[in-house]
């Protein structure tokens, strides 16, 4: 309850008096390191926020939303993906690519809304519908309507039904106070190369920025295992870390090590 002291007393009361949600079983993400920090996994029926670290990492953030949706639901449960019209016009979700990440696009219902306000309103309605498993809200920038009240509304609607909202914040979104259970920051990570130096499985660098009632501030570099529907520690990025003073030569050749100063440490 980090923000509760700053809230209007009525909101605080409402929050304190809210019936404790049926503590559904946590949905493990498959990597012990992450699941330990999260206390078992992602909590369904709560708001989870995903930020792209930079503009270029938006596809990685989108991918993480898909992965979380997969981890949170069983295979036949429908997923509603709400996007803004401007986002859909520029880059559409691609069915074969979704399939390649493990989510059957037939499960997906795509809602393209004209503005963030309509999107949030549709999301609150959808979150009350138990037939859905996950609602992904993709929002660009920092729309004024997405304030603390809006995120609380999402959280309350989700708690009543058990549907999990995933708030995907793209296009230079900055974290703001919100009612999110967890907040993630994601960037692309070099993948474990396959034969002939081909790009491998989706690899991401995850930062847990915030966790309500739990520890935060962790970084992991993970690889998505589509077939097992879980994360696993990225196989090689550790080997690509610049080791200070070490005599390590990256396998890709001498020219690969130059720009690698900002690799994060994998734990």
């Amino acid at each position: 309850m980090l923000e509760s002291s700053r809230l209007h007393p009525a909101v605080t009361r409402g929050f304190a008096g809210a019936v404790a949600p049926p503590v559904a079983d946590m949905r493990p993400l498959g990597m012990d390191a992450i699941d330990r920090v999260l206390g078992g996994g992602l909590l369904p029926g709560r708001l989870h926020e995903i930020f792209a670290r930079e503009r270029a990492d938006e596809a990685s953030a989108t991918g993480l939303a898909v992965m979380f949706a997969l981890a949170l639901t069983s295979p036949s449960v429908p997923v509603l993906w709400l996007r803004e019209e401007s986002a859909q016009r520029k880059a559409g979700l691609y069915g074969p690519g979704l399939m390649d990440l493990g989510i059957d696009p037939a499960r997906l219902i795509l809602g393209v809304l004209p503005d963030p306000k309509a999107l949030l309103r549709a999301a609150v309605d959808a979150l009350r519908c138990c037939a859905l498993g996950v609602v992904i809200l993709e929002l660009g920038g920092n729309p004024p309507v997405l304030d603390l009240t809006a995120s609380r509304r999402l959280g309350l609607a989700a708690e009543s039904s058990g549907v999990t909202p995933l708030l995907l914040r793209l296009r230079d979104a900055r974290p703001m106070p919100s009612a999110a259970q967890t907040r993630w920051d994601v960037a692309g990570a070099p993948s474990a190369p396959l034969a002939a130096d081909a790009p491998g499985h989706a690899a991401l660098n995850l930062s847990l920025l915030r966790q309500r009632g739990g520890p935060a501030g962790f970084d992991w570099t993970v690889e998505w295992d589509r077939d097992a529907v879980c994360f696993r520690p990225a196989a090689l990025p550790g080997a690509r870390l610049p080791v200070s003073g070490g005599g390590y030569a990256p396998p890709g050749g001498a020219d690969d090590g130059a720009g690698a100063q900002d690799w994060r440490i994998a734990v």
Partner: protein
Amino acid sequence: MLRLAERTTEPERRTGASPSDRAGEPPLVFTVKERGAYRLHALDEPALAMGLEPGMALADARARLPDLRAVPHDAEAEGRFIERLADLCDRFTPMVAIALPEGLVLDIEGCVHLFGGEVALARDAVRLMRTQGLRVRSARAGTPEAALALARLENINPPPTGGGRPLPQAVVEGYPPSTLATPLRQRKALPPALAGEKRKRALTETERLHRLPLLALRVDVDVRHALRRAGFVTIGDLAPLPAAPLAARFGASLVDALGRLLGRIDSRITPRRLPAPIRTERRFAEPVAHVETVMAVLGELLAQACETLAERHQGGRRFAARLYRSDGATRDLAVETGQPVRDPAVVLRLFEERIEALSDPLDPGFGFDIVRLSVPIAEGRSDPQARLDGDPARDADLAALLDRLSVRAGAQRYRRLVPRDTHIPERATRLARVSEADPPPWETAVADEPPLRPLTLLDPPERIEVMAQVPDGPPRQFRWRGSVHRIARQEGPERIAPEWWRRRDGYSTNPGFTRDYYRVEDEAGRRYWVFRLGLYERETEQPDWYVHGLFA
């Protein structure tokens, strides 16, 4: 009882052109596949004039007329067309029956006076059919069989005087007179003597029936053969004979058919039964000025309408409410649903959403006098069935949610991704309506393969500047949106050729550029799907590069 039968000609209606439009065009025939061969089913007048006949093999017809246009006969479309004509005839009488092939029987008993007599009614009906671009033959008679027979066969064959002329083989052999054009041609060949006789004295209905050929009898071909072998040519030959010997020799079906034709046996039509449209309304003694009251009344009307729907085993797809204000203004509200529904609460909620989403709010003014609700579109609704891949309650919940969301934002905003069978990446995903039935499944990914297709596809692809060691080699570095990406890993090319067969001019002139796709990963760990447009030197000197998609 008087009945009217109408016949239509089919070639015109299916091409949708009137005969004058098609002057100079080659003859048109409709074919059906029979025992492995295409046979002519229906012909237009030029085709008949060329001596083609229904039942003839298409190959033979083509041998005579190489420029013949042959179109497969579409029985279903024809059925729909006749249904539509029957709908049109509802204005004369509610008792309309479809008499296949290509006939409508109207029971006009009791409604003649509304149209100024039988003759006037028949003339109106014929005119109505003509406005549809049809050629029509109509007849009035005491029984449906007689009316149909007269409409189909009267004046087609000259009544035999003395020995009589042999009937044309096509008709005698019982090729259904579906090919109306046959009668038309024959009519032209009407001997002047008969026409003169007709002018002299109007024949009675019985006399006209007696002149009809044996084809007017609805009996098996065998029976007709037997009759002809016994020397009978017209109905008139059979009519005076006693029934018992006829039945003994040719079977009871002949006597029955003859009786129905001549009105000796009572015969009725089976009219189409159209369900009455669902409409309920409530009139108020005093105008009601509260929207809440109106909604409550609307709820009651919905309950009534849904009860009717339940009796019909249907669900409404569209519900329309009209509010009549006391000052004469009306307000229309309509909601649509993705699945047929008959739950009043669900529909009422949609109406509430609809009112909430109105740009100008519902203004009761001095109050509403009448609330009327109708269900213009209702469909059969099977009771929910258990499916293997989901439970029905969840599907129903989801459908209700989507209806609610669609009412507010518009149904076109909610879509499902459906695969399309093509190699062209940007065409491979189609956005379909959520309610679309049975979408094709997506191809599953091969186990342990990395993602080969990007998660998002840029539309249009964005141009990039690429450095490559050789012009037709893999990229080494590219500049996109102002920043340089050095490529650490790549895989490719995956060559995707253009679908030149979709082009109007085919392959010959400009087949389009081939694309070479590469999966690349830059040093920061971001994965892109880039392609080179055009094969170097073979298709273009300066191939352009584009980034088409982004991987997770």
